[in-house]
């Protein structure tokens, strides 16, 4: 599974960073950076899905293709 962030939507709430710190990082400009876009293990997938649901601006999405 792949996760991507729409930086036009991201407002820097940081919920994804709190939920999945190994997948997301906050950049200095207050926007998210996906540091690990390809997620494979069941644990990582569950964490990413929780992060997607925790985004107040729906800036995160997942897909099966890159």
């Amino acid at each position, binding site marked *: 599974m792949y996760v991507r962030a729409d930086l036009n939507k991201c407002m820097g*709430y940081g919920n994804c960073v709190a939920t999945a710190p190994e997948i997301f990082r906050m950049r200095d400009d207050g926007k998210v950076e996906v540091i690990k876009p390809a997620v494979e293990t069941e644990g990582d997938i569950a964490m990413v899905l929780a992060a997607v649901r*925790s985004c107040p601006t729906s800036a995160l999405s997942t897909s099966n293709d890159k």
Partner: protein
Amino acid sequence: MSSSSSHTEASTTLPSKVVVVGASVAGVRLCQTLRSSGFTGEIALVGDEAGMPYDRPPLSKEFLVGERSCAEIGLAGQQDWAGLAVTYHACSKAVRLDTVRRVVECETGLVLAYDALVLACGSRPVSAPWDNVAGVTWFRRIEDAVFVRDQIAAGCDVACIGGGFIGSEVVSIARKRGVDATLIEAQPRLLNKALGPRLSNFIRDLHLAAGVTVLCNTPVASVAEEASGGLVVSGVNGEQIHAGVVVSGIGVRPSTEWLNSSGLPVENGVLCEADGSVVGFPEIHAIGDVAALFDPVSHQYVRYEHWTRAVEVASVVAHNIVRPAQKTAYSAVPFFWTWQHGHFIQMVGKWEDRYEEVFVNCRTQNDEKLIVLYVEADAVVSAVAVAWPALVPWLRNACAKRASFPGCVDHLHQICRQVVVS
């Protein structure tokens, strides 16, 4: 925390039918997490509003200013709904819960049987004597926001009764849209339950700089329609505030009236264990504004009206319903945000009177930033970042582990060109 062997036994059986009362962010996120955790049984979602479930925080922000439409604040897209296989009952106000027969009854006559029940029914605004005056509105539902947005668009001046987050955000948008705005607060300062006095004054100054009239120490006596068509708000000390539309935002109460005959433990919210299950009712969980979760640290039942907590507890409860043998408890530092006159204000933790309130003005490469640290016994327990989201992940960690105050200031020295603590 209460539990018994029979409860444990009952709660390790996987339910086949989950009923969720409340089409809130908590309710919808719970449905989504149930499905992504592999739950294949029936899910029924009951909401008392007409349309598809939507997100509330934007109502007093992007929606009110006109930057996001109704469609853009939906909690799930049409495709998402199709994939979720949730039976959504709109316009269905739950009016009675029978925990023996395990059914929820709605005003419409709809009766839903459950194996597992999740209460996500939220909160409702505190009522006031002026609620029924034409032109006065609460600010909770999408139709309230549409009404205020349209009144502002028509050039109506705005008065907000209550200097909490709703009132502060509404006047902030009103000024952005160019109408006059007055904020009326009964207490000596704005946001008095959420923020310390210095930060509260900082926000008052943002309002004043933006041209908002701020009236503290001003309990409202009445609101009346004027012959000219507008409204007049009268303060107990003789103040008269004229406005075209009045928002009454004096707090919310958990929506528990319908549970009065249910036997559920209700005080300020439905009392729950730290895992979200209702005390004494392992097959029932509560999430969102209506849930008062047991906090093992303070040994109290605590209730927050925070979006992030609603989402996080929904996730924990969905997990606990699907994997009853591996229940987890919820614990996280509170987190919320507000927008005031274009300033993005994020708070980690909560404010208590006993905390010391420290302002840290930071000069970074590009601009000036304000961080507010709330300190107890030399430990940072809560913090606020003004227009500095990049720092918030670090603040969340610092507050979670009660980092030392000097250590936090040292860190800020390292990342900033100049730091002034006051």
